[in-house]
Structures are given as structure tokens and as C-alpha cells.
């Protein structure tokens, strides 16, 4: 412990408080701004007042049943992707690591496409009972299944071998993708289109029914990642070094993988394949606040949430009354912004 205290992780508490405080305020503000604008013109204050009465007007209903759940969902998805991306980059000691590496995206895609294409034939009663939650449910099963398989292959004598896991991930991804291909071959025209929209990603969600479950499945694992910043800093030094510093490396890696699987698995199951955030947001935070994971982890969680609701705000309002796919916004706006940040950094403007 005493060695840790002297490591460079010991940045002034003020910087950490400052950055995280700013991001927290930013998250709240982003949520409020996102809530205030949309295709349907709403005076938010009046709408909220109407919600307190017995006679709720349409503006109130739009806020309560369409926009608020969507904003909350966006915050959760962003938090899951941002936090998980940051943790995986540390665990793999690779700046390009993202949840796709441990099979989540392809597993979820396989589950989703299976539900879309053969669900109605193989398990009609389940599909009817689960209604539009059938696809997310199956996507989650696919994501969790692929990840657990990769992790169990990557474990030798109880030790997580990251390199082996990476290779297993490549194999499982290939298998899942050919499964997706096979399903696409079996799909009819309408199923193909449904599938296309799933892969484009969207934060359009049906009201409140699924949100409590999503919130628990995202916030608990993401919270666990956030409080492990110190251990993750030590893990960056190497497995052996981290162990000498008192980190239970096995337990930490298992925690990271399971947390990522649960939170990102849940997020992509409902939102579809949304990339970019998990990869880029941690880098944004590192560019702005340095590599200390006590800042990067919670920072990426809140940063991911901000980026997600803001991108969705653009997606919802740029082509009213149409919704633009959020993946398109993230790439078109987020990509150049990230580039600008890199270049600005290079020329020491920032």
C-alpha cells in the first residue's frame, strides 16, 4: 500500500475532483438539454407541470413516455460503453481494445438475428410472450454466451491468459459472424430489413417497462469498474507487478470481463450495434485528464453518457420528422471531433 501511495497515481485530489465534477455537471446538463429538444415542440416546464395534474396533455405524454425514457436509456448505454471500453483497454493493455474483442457484439448480433429469423418458427410462444423484448433477450443470451465461452477458453489453471482470450475471441467472432451470415441467407426480405436497422443501432425504446432492469444491469457492473481505478492502474504495470502490489489479478480480470459482458451485453441488446463510444471516449478522457484510471474509469462512464445523449439529440433533430441512425451521427460528428482533438494535441493547442 505504501508503495502505491508514492506511485504517479497520486495526482492531486483537486484535479480528480475538478474533472469528475465537471463531467458530472456535464452529464446532468446533457440530460436536461436532450430532454428539452426533439421533433415534437414541447415547453418542458409546462409539460412537467401538466404531468403533476390529472389532465396530462400530449406534450406531457411526449416528455414522460417518449423522450425521458429515451434520454435515460441513452445515458445508460453510453455509461456502459464508455466504462467498459476504458476497463478493457487497461486489461488488454491495448488502446484499440473494445467490447467486440470478447465476442459481445458478434454474439449479440447472432442472438438478435436468430430471434428475428427463426424465433417465430422455433419458439413461437416465447416470441409472442416476449413481444419486442424477444430480440434484446436473445441478443443478450448471445452476447453473454460468446463472452463466457471466450473467457473459459482463455482461463488456464484459473489464470486468465489475455493473449489466449484474444485469439479465442477471434475464433468465436468468426463463428458467430458466419452464423449471422447463415441466418441472413435464411431471412426473407422483411427480416433482412429489420436486421439492417438492428445493426445500425437506435435508442428508440418502448417506454419504461424494460428500463429498471437495464439500469440495474448497467449501473451495478459499471459502478464496480469505477471503484477499481487503483487496481486497474496497478494492472497496467503488468500482471506480476500488480500482484506484488496486492492486487488479486485473477479476481480483477474476472470482474472486468463479467462487468463488461453484463453492461455492454445489455446495452447493445436493446440499442443494437453501437460502436465508437467504447473505443474513443476513454481516449478523449485520457487526452483531457491524463492516464490515471481513478479519473479515466468514472470519467469514461460519464463521458460516454454525455456523448451518447448528445449524439442521439442530433439524430432526433437533424432531419425532423425523421430519425437518423445514431451510428451515422457518432461517426460523422464524433470522428472529425476526435481527429481535431488529436491534431490539436499534436500541435499543443490544447
Amino acid at each position, binding site marked *: 500500500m505504501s508503495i502505491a501511495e508514492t506511485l504517479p497515481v497520486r495526482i492531486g485530489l483537486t484535479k480528480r475532483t475538478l474533472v469528475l465534477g465537471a463531467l458530472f455537471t456535464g452529464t446532468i446538463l446533457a440530460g436536461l438539454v436532450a430532454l428539452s429538444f*426533439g*421533433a*415534437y*415542440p414541447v415547453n418542458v416546464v409546462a409539460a412537467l407541470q401538466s404531468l403533476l395534474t390529472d389532465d396530462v396533455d*400530449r406534450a406531457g*405524454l*411526449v416528455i414522460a*413516455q*417518449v*423522450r425521458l425514457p429515451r434520454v435515460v436509456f441513452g445515458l445508460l448505454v453510453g455509461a456502459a460503453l464508455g466504462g467498459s471500453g476504458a476497463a478493457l483497454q487497461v486489461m488488454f493493455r491495448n488502446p484499440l481494445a473494445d467490447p467486440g474483442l470478447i465476442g459481445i457484439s458478434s454474439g449479440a448480433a447472432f442472438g438478435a438475428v436468430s430471434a428475428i429469423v427463426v424465433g417465430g418458427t422455433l419458439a413461437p410462444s416465447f416470441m409472442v410472450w416476449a*413481444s*419486442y423484448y424477444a430480440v434484446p433477450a436473445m441478443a443478450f443470451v448471445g452476447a453473454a454466451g460468446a463472452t463466457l465461452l471466450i473467457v473459459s477458453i482463455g482461463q488456464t489453471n484459473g489464470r486468465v491468459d489475455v493473449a489466449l482470450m484474444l485469439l479465442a475471441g477471434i475464433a468465436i467472432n468468426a463463428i458467430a459472424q458466419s452464423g449471422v451470415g447463415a441466418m441472413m*441467407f435464411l431471412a*426473407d*426480405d*422483411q427480416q*433482412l*430489413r*429489420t436486421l439492417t*436497422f438492428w445493426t445500425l443501432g*437506435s435508442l*428508440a*425504446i*418502448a*417506454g419504461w417497462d424494460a428500463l429498471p432492469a437495464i439500469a440495474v444491469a448497467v449501473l451495478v457492473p459499471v459502478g464496480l469498474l469505477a471503484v477499481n481505478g487503483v487496481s486497474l492502474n496497478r494492472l497496467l504495470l503488468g500482471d506480476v507487478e500488480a500482484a506484488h502490489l496486492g492486487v488479486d489479478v485473477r479476481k480483477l480480470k474476472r470482474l472486468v470481463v463479467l462487468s463488461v459482458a453484463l453492461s455492454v451485453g445489455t446495452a447493445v441488446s436493446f440499442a443494437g450495434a453501437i460502436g465508437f463510444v467504447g473505443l474513443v471516449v476513454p481516449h478523449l478522457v485520457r487526452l483531457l485528464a491524463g492516464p490515471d484510471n481513478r479519473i479515466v474509469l468514472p470519467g469514461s462512464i460519464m463521458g460516454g453518457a454525455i456523448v451518447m445523449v448528445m449524439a442521439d439529440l442530433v439524430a*432526433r433533430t437533424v432531419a*425532423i*420528422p*425523421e*430519425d437518423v441512425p445514431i451510428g451515422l451521427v457518432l461517426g460523422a460528428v464524433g470522428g472529425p471531433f476526435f481527429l481535431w482533438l488529436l491534431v490539436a494535441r499534436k500541435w499543443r493547442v490544447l
Partner: protein
Amino acid sequence: MLTTRFQRRQVLAGMAATAFMMPGVATGSQQHRIVSVGGSVTETIYFLDRGLLLVGSDTTSSYPEAAKNLPKVGYMRNLSVEGVLSLEPTMVLLEEGAGPPVALDSLSSIGVRIEKVDEARSIADVVTKIRRIAGLVDAEGEGDELARTVAARAKAIGEAVAVVDTRPTVLFLLDVKDGALMTAGKNTSVESIVDLAGGRLVFDEFEGFKPVTAEAVQQADPDVILLMQHVGHRLGGEEAVARLPVMAHLRAAQEGRVIAMDGLLLLGFGPRTPDAVQTLARLIHGAAAVPNILEPLRAG
């Protein structure tokens, strides 16, 4: 004649829009504000002379011209809840397949009336569809008239087609991707319209839309290649399609029998379906075999 009627409609539409923006102005307040989703539904509403009731449509609604200028709520399978609500509709008319279901449920929970119209695959279905839509937009009289017209036109062209005793084989080209060709099989709207026009699909071993290999296409050797206009444009026109590697050695491609038709006209199964049958029949049998007996039916 046509233009003046459209001009008058546009002026009226402008006035109506102004009136809607001024609450308290009496303008027959019982009038519907309709968002129509699905090209053939939108088209039918115009044919019923109720185009003024439309406040929005989806991206598949491309006929008549006026429909293109309506605010678009997105692709029919990917509607935006708030986008639809922002148009303040009293009713949303949907073609089969519109969605996602999540969006439709949200809309009904907020109190928007949702009406679904069944998909049509035959002239009888088209007539049913016209009457159903007419009932929803308070145009029963117009609906009766339109239904009778469409049925009569379909009968006339059907008799002309029945005289032709050949049944040319048609290869439908939905799309070409990475050299593979997507085509239509049994139980598709393509099969229905080709059947009405007196042809038959060259691939009838499978259902729905499937990729087929270049060799299978070569083996099948269709008499005619049929595709949708927007796909043709994307691929660079009929001649470019005929020169595609999967096509180049086909008899139909070499002899120039590559046909592109407007997708909504061809596969929409709306009031213009008899027109589509005539156009397609004249293209696959030759203009000499099928007389041009129908003047185009136009909305408005």
C-alpha cells in the same frame, strides 16, 4: 387540366396549413390530419381526392408528385415516434410491415389512432384495400367509384393478356451484391404481378427473395430480366445491367430484354396496378402482342 387542378390543390393546401396554425379559426375542425405510411396507401388517398388531409408520409410514398413534398417520417419500417407526433396527426394509416412495433405501441399509448391496411397481392385485394382506405378517410363514394374503375381496367387488361399464349420466363433482379444476384421466388409481390402480366418467374423452387449464383442464372436462361428503376439507376442503366458479369452471357441481356419499372408502380398493388400489368405485359410479350388499351390512371 391536370396541372390546373394540382395548382388549385396546392393553393388550398397552403390555405389549410395556415388555418391549422391559427387555433380558433373555424375550418371544418372535424377534418382528419393523416400521416400515411406506405407508398400504395398514400397513392390511394390521392386517388380518392383526399390528398389535402395528408400532413406527412414515409419515404416509400413517391407518387403522385405532391406526395414527394410531404414531410417524411422516415422509412416505413423505421418510423420516429416524436417525428410522427410533431405533425399532430389525428390518424396514422399504415401499410402492412410498417413499424417498428415499439414505435406503433408508443403512438397508440399517447392516443394517436393507428389503422393498419392489409397487404394486397391480387386485384381483389386492391379493391378491398381501396374500400378500406376510403372508409377511413370518409370517401366511401369516391372509393366505390375508384374500386369499380380499377376492377374494370384490370378485367380489360386481363382479357387482353389472356389472349397471348406464351408465358415468357422472367428473372427479377432485386439487387446485385458482390457479384451475387438477389432474385424473387414464390409468394412474393413480384410473382403476383408477373403472373398477372402473363409471365412466370424463372426461379420458382424457393420462396421469398434469395441470392442465386451466376451459374444458376445461366442455367435458367430467362426470356426477360426485370428490375426496379431505382436499382437500374444505381447500376448505371439497363445497358449497364445487361453488361454485368452475371448477366452478360444471357440471351435476354444480349438481345436487350432488360426491363426497368418504377418500384411503387410495379409492386405497390394500388389503384395503378392494372396500368402496371399493361406496361409489364407489353414489355415481356412485345407491344404487338398486347394492345395499349388503358389510358394511364392519374391521381387528381
